């Protein structure tokens, strides 16, 4: 009997927990489950603002409900003429000053966090040898993909941002064609990638992406940028510093020791793809197409399709069907035969950096 009750308790506890988690969204993308200092600050501000606002709503609803029940004509009689009150100075002052106080309570942390989150002075800091003290990533948003250059490390990648955990990572953001906006909901708010100027901000990643559903955080484009705006996703892999360093080393090696999983595929690649795509992770941003040095490690094809050879081949055959308005040409059977495509897919899937 008692045992049964305990089970029931456990069950209801689980149910409540599940409901709570559902209300919090998915961990890899929800702002309700902050995975870094920036998102956390913003979440704290959200709680404060929601609290104040809830108070306002409750006060209004109480007055409203009482008025609605007490002063119905059906109760007061059809002929009742209420007293024509002009107003009340005391009340006007009351509901002017109380909101001002409430807003001040919100305004002070708002201004504080605005400056805190906008502080990028440390970006320029260098140690005695002239090396940058902090990791800086240059992000270039393009129709409809993301390029991530690590200028101090001499490497570049695309679609999947790889960053170390537990340190501030600084970003330079710009768009190459039209305006986009760079947003990793669970790690911090967005910042636009304008076409004419570089925007700077920082994020800090305080949770390893390893344990997440897909092993990555989700990143989004948050500014309407054309037909495939909805598909302009990217992923974020967060690694402990030592693993990040070995990833960087791996990327740097791809220049000298490329991985060739299928020699025929490499041949096809060098005929059809190399004009736009690089397979060496060493370089700078500004490429025509996404860098593919770590393609095999990635989580998605074209940023949003399941990462398998079938999807990859589908994508190459008809890019417009999957991502309308993107700038990659499609390749027909005349251009790349089915066998060549199989080889190419195997080659691309073999491009791995992670050991």
């Amino acid at each position, binding site marked *: 009997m008692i045992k049964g009750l305990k089970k029931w308790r456990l069950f209801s506890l689980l149910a409540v927990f599940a409901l709570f988690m559902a209300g919090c969204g998915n961990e890899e993308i929800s702002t*309700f489950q902050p995975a870094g200092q920036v998102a956390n600050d913003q979440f704290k501000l959200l709680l404060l603002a929601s609290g104040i606002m809830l108070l306002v709503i409750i006060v209004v609803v109480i007055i409203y409900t009482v008025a609605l029940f007490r002063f119905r004509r059906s109760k007061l009689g059809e002929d009742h003429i209420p007293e*024509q009150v002009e107003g009340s100075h005391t009340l006007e002052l009351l509901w002017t000053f109380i909101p001002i106080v409430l807003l001040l309570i919100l305004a002070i942390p708002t201004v504080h966090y605005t400056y805190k989150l906008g502080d990028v002075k440390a970006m320029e800091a260098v140690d005695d040898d002239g090396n940058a003290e902090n990791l800086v990533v240059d992000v270039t948003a393009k129709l409809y993909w993301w390029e991530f250059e690590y200028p101090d490390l001499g490497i570049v990648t695309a679609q999947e941002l790889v960053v170390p955990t537990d340190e501030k990572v600084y970003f330079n953001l710009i768009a190459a064609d039209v305006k986009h906006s760079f*947003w990793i909901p669970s790690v911090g708010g967005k910042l636009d990638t304008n076409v004419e100027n570089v925007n700077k901000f920082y994020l800090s990643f305080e949770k390893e992406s390893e344990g997440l559903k897909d092993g990555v955080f989700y990143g989004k484009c948050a500014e309407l940028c054309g037909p495939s705006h909805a598909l302009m996703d990217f992923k974020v892999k967060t690694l402990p510093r030592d693993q990040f360093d070995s990833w960087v080393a791996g990327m740097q090696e791809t220049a000298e020791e490329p991985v060739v999983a299928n020699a025929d595929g490499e041949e096809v690649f060098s005929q059809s793809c190399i004009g736009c795509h690089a397979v060496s992770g060493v370089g700078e941003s500004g490429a025509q197409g996404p860098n593919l040095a770590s393609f095999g490690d990635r989580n998605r094809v074209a940023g949003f399709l399941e990462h398998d050879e079938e999807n990859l081949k589908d994508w190459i055959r008809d890019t417009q069907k999957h991502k309308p308005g993107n700038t990659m040409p499609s390749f027909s059977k005349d251009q790349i035969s089915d066998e060549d495509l199989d080889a190419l897919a195997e080659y691309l899937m073999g491009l791995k950096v992670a050991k």
Partner: protein
Amino acid sequence: MSSVAQKSGFGATLWDWLTTVDHKKIGILYLLGGLFFFVLGGIEAMIIRLQLITPNNDLVSAGLFNDLITMHGTTMIFLAAMPMLFGFMNAIMPLQIGARDVAFPFINSLGFWMFAFGGLFLNISWLFGEVPDAGWTSYASLSLHSPGHGIDFYAIGLQIAGGGTLMAGINFLVTIINMRAPGMTYMRMPLFTWTTFVASAMILFAFPPLTIGLFFLTFDRMFGGNFFDHTMGGNTIIWEHIFWIFGHPEVYILILPAFGIFSEVFSVFARKRLFGYTAMVFATVLIGFLGFMVWAHHMFTVGLGPTANAIFAVATMAIAVPTGVKIFNWLLTIWGGSIKVTTPMLYALGFIPSFVMGGVTGVMQGAAPLDYQLHDSYFIVAHFHYVIVGGVVLAIFAGLHYWWPKMFGTMLNELLGKITFVFFFVGFHLTFLIQHWLGFWGMPRRVWTFMDGQGWNLANFVSTIGALSMAIGFTVMVINIIMTTIKNERVGNDPWGDGRTLEWAIPSPPPFYNFPATPLVRGLDTLWIEKMEGSKEMITPAEPITDIHMPHGSIIPMLMTLGLFIAGFGAMFHQETSWGLGVLIFGLAFTFVTMAIRSLKDDLGYYVTKEQILQDQENIKRGRN
């Protein structure tokens, strides 16, 4: 010429409506035009929600989806909400201040036709298959990049419609300043008139930036200008500033008249003087003023820097204070009143909690660092629908039921009105409440589709169901309007029984000259004062009945706009066709010729003689008995 005698027949009626300069008829034209575009925008909204009902849906293509969201936003703001409010302003405001018409009846007509042709121009894009697709904000880098003529339709269509809005605004301003009846001091004006006044002043300052922005965009796209092309030394952020310097006041231009409508409705159906009238007036003016100081809160994520963001964050929060003052004054108006829940009152009562929720989420987004998360997510979609639908649209529906008898002489069915409210109101909350959470859960706005497995499926499904309920509610309202019109049961001066302002002292609909003799105003709620004194005529005339000077109708406003409409197509096609330039010149010349005719041909109007008025009043009285 006899003016009271009326020609009949379809042609004569059509001609009468095409040439009318009567503010009441123009009000009806605005209202019907607005309703038409409201239906269009509503259909677009339904398709948007149906596309998002499940993940990876392919009801519409990605390109078409962007067309739909752009046209939905643009249509609802410029062609539905504003014209319907203008309809009420036109039809009711002159009656509230005891005027015979607006100050410039000809310009009033011109303003309407510019709205109508501008809206038509914008929507003809659907027939060309090249539809605006850069969002209603049409941010420059994307709008310059957009292929086809879609954005050209946006720029020229809005330019024409915007010109009409500017004219209407100036007209209302001059009317309220100059044409108030004797004794109607500023601090005795009904709140709807006050909000019309402030909104018009805002139009005067907010629309010129839009005009300039649209000209820049037009020149960039059609004539090789480089205002926004950053590769040629232009700057896209300038567009964002210009757009929001217009765009933020624009939302207050929408919401202030809505506040005005609710102020009237609360006071009438609580049978009580508006609580804190003076505070309400000052709050309105303050909101209008602050409305120009906060545009950059739409741009917190643009990278303006922490100082700009902090200043605009605090300024934005400040607007909550006068808005809060209004909410509490409305609450205190019904407090101690005698509340009768009619359909308009139902909308007003629904408005309070809805708008408070929309308001507080606005303050949340005013907190800049928090906005970095909420901006361009579904949270903002929820927020602005809570203020626009929960504020403006509910006000329009309230006004529609409230003033329908005054405008058309018949009462909308109360039961159907309440059914409309229930479906619409429940549907509205079902659609948009959950979208706050979609935003928190990371869903960006303006997405054509979404992948499975991001935790957004159920919320999107619920949202779409809510939208369908709103559609059902609106359909019931259309049925209500049709049934009421067919039944045609005429009503008297004050069908609600508790009218407080001047419009309820004259017949429904009023005679074309409104007041046989200009009324004398002896205080706030003019009619209420007369009622309490047991006055029989309900109006104390300020002067004896004399001949009334009235303007002639004119087709010129429509022709003037037609010229601009034609010129628009010329401008759009002048680069790729040989005839484009010719059409552009012809259209502009046509407009100039009509302007010249207007200037050179004297039209001194006509007089309605005292005898005709007395006869007409006699007929009205006899008709009543």
